[in-house]
């Protein structure tokens, strides 16, 4: 295995282990709840980066995968008595399949048209779910407290789910890393640079795009399932929150699109920053303004994000931080 020789591979494993075990020391639940949010952001940003950074397709509605994952999971667990493991896996697969089917359609659109269509899809699904009685309409789905009994009580269940979310985070990073080094990834980057040229060079663009779109849906859907299972409820406004979708793009940009570590770093920093802004009373009124100004500054002056800046400053850092 060549992977074992790469320092970056071990860095991902170490980071995942740190996330998994650090809050366990002293049973620190506050820290766990902070980290779970970071982890979810990292999952969303990393998978979104597969589309934006690797393929050059700006998915503005990526949150629809997260939301659908949450809904499928809670519905299977709540109404059909599935265990959560089977439910999240199923939710991941079915969401991926839906993305694949949808992808063959909307991925024919390019640039702003694709971006608009993804917004449209998210809003359509949100409005549909809000009216869909099987899934509780605008009230959403609530899990009874007894659900957690099977997992040894709520306290224990939450730790289990936390570890699973961290696992999904680790897999997300490995996936990003693996795709980037693969022939598949090379084809995607060619599509990002110039889709017509890529096609003439032999890249099966329609298949590749649908595949990566579908792949980028899987882990966010699983994460959505775990996250909303942990919360015990899911409502349309929260599941299909377009704002979080766009914030994920900000995270990707902040860290550096097209790199493996960038979106993760961006997501982590964004979560910290957001927390800081929201909990500092003098700033909380202005958290959106500050985030907006920050985003604008990145776009205007550092479009490569943090990683782009680092690479420029210390080119050798590429060898460790991909």
């Amino acid at each position, binding site marked *: 295995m060549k992977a074992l020789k790469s320092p970056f591979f071990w860095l991902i494993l170490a980071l995942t282990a740190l996330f998994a075990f650090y809050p366990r020391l002293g049973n620190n639940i506050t820290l766990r709840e902070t980290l779970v949010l970071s982890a979810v952001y990292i999952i969303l940003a990393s998978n979104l980066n597969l589309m*934006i950074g690797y393929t*050059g397709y*700006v998915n*503005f509605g990526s949150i629809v995968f997260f939301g659908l994952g949450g809904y499928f999971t809670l519905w299977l667990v709540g109404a059909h008595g599935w265990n959560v493991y089977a439910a999240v896996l199923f939710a991941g697969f079915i969401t991926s399949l839906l993305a694949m089917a949808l992808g063959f*359609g*909307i991925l*024919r*659109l390019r*640039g*702003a*048209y694709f*971006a*608009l*269509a993804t*917004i*449209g*899809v998210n*809003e*359509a699904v949100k*409005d*549909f779910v*809000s*009216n869909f009685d099987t899934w509780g309409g*605008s009230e959403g789905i609530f899990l009874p407290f007894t659900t957690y009994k099977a997992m040894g009580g709520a306290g224990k269940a939450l730790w289990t789910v936390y570890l699973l979310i961290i696992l999904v985070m680790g897999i997300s990073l490995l996936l990003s890393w693996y795709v980037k080094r693969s022939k598949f990834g090379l084809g995607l980057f060619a599509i990002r640079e110039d889709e017509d040229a890529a096609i003439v060079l032999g890249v099966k663009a329609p298949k590749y795009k649908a595949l990566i779109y579908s792949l980028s849906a899987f882990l966010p859907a699983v994460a959505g399932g775990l996250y909303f299972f942990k919360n015990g409820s899911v409502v349309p406004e929260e599941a299909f929150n377009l704002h979080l979708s*766009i914030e994920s*793009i*900000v995270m990707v*940009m902040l860290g550096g699109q097209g790199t493996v570590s960038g979106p993760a770093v961006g997501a982590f920093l964004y979560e910290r920053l957001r927390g800081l802004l929201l909990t500092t009373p003098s700033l909380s*009124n*202005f*958290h*959106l*303004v*500050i*985030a*907006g*100004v920050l*985003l*604008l500054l990145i*776009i*205007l002056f550092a*479009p490569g994000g943090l990683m782009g800046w680092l690479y420029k400053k210390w080119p050798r850092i590429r060898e460790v931080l991909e």
Partner: protein
Amino acid sequence: MVEILSSVMDGLLIGLVYGLAAIGLTLIFGVMDVVNLAHGAIIALGMFFLYLFFGAGLHPYLALLPVAVLGFIFGVIVYQIAVRKIISGPPLMSLLATFAVSMIIIGVGTALWSTSPYNINFKVTTYNFFGYTVTSARLVSAVAAVLVTFGLYYFLYRTVLGKAVRAVANNREAAELMGIPSQQILAITFGIGTMLAMLSGALIATLFPFTILSGGVYELKSFVASVLGGLGNPTGALFGGIILGLIEGSVAPFIQVSWTNVIEFVIFVGILLFFPTGLFGGRK
């Protein structure tokens, strides 16, 4: 039957206002290939500008004038700060830059006005035509939307500056070779697009209560209307708005209001997929 017809009429009238908002969005896209994600926030800002002038004692319809002027200036400033530099970059950049502007507007707006609802309280007369009751506010807003659209067309087709805008929309490089200062034209276009969005917001504010977040709904409706008419095509956008209003009006008596959004977005995605240049053809 009268009920259904009334509903359809209401839809038509509000559809004209949607159309005006959509023209603001589509004009900017048509000329500079920028999808303005600050569109909704700007609509909301138009509502609050009207509120401020109204609070200062101006009649709401008179206040439309200073709102328009402010809207234009605001648009030019936004262009110079946020859009100018990335206008030739990939679409992601302009989408994000305008979204950042949206965050800033909504952030400042929330700090100033919180997110609780406001409304414009002024004297409204009710008319009755053969059983169809309609308020003067609705009629005026529809007529104002039509007048502004005519004004825009007069500008685009009858004035030198307007022709320059069309030239830049058609081919920026060629226009520059002919001596048209394209950067200025782009700034002016962004100003006009912003002005139209603010005016539509101001008109909506005379009809319904609003918050700083209200723009989001109308931004999405503007997307749908522009795409129906073909992105970049102002006439198309107006008709797109009318179609949207008519759909809302004609399905309202039969199904729950909350389903209309589903229908709209399904139409939206469908049109993007199968008629990417809109129902009336036009530029792609």
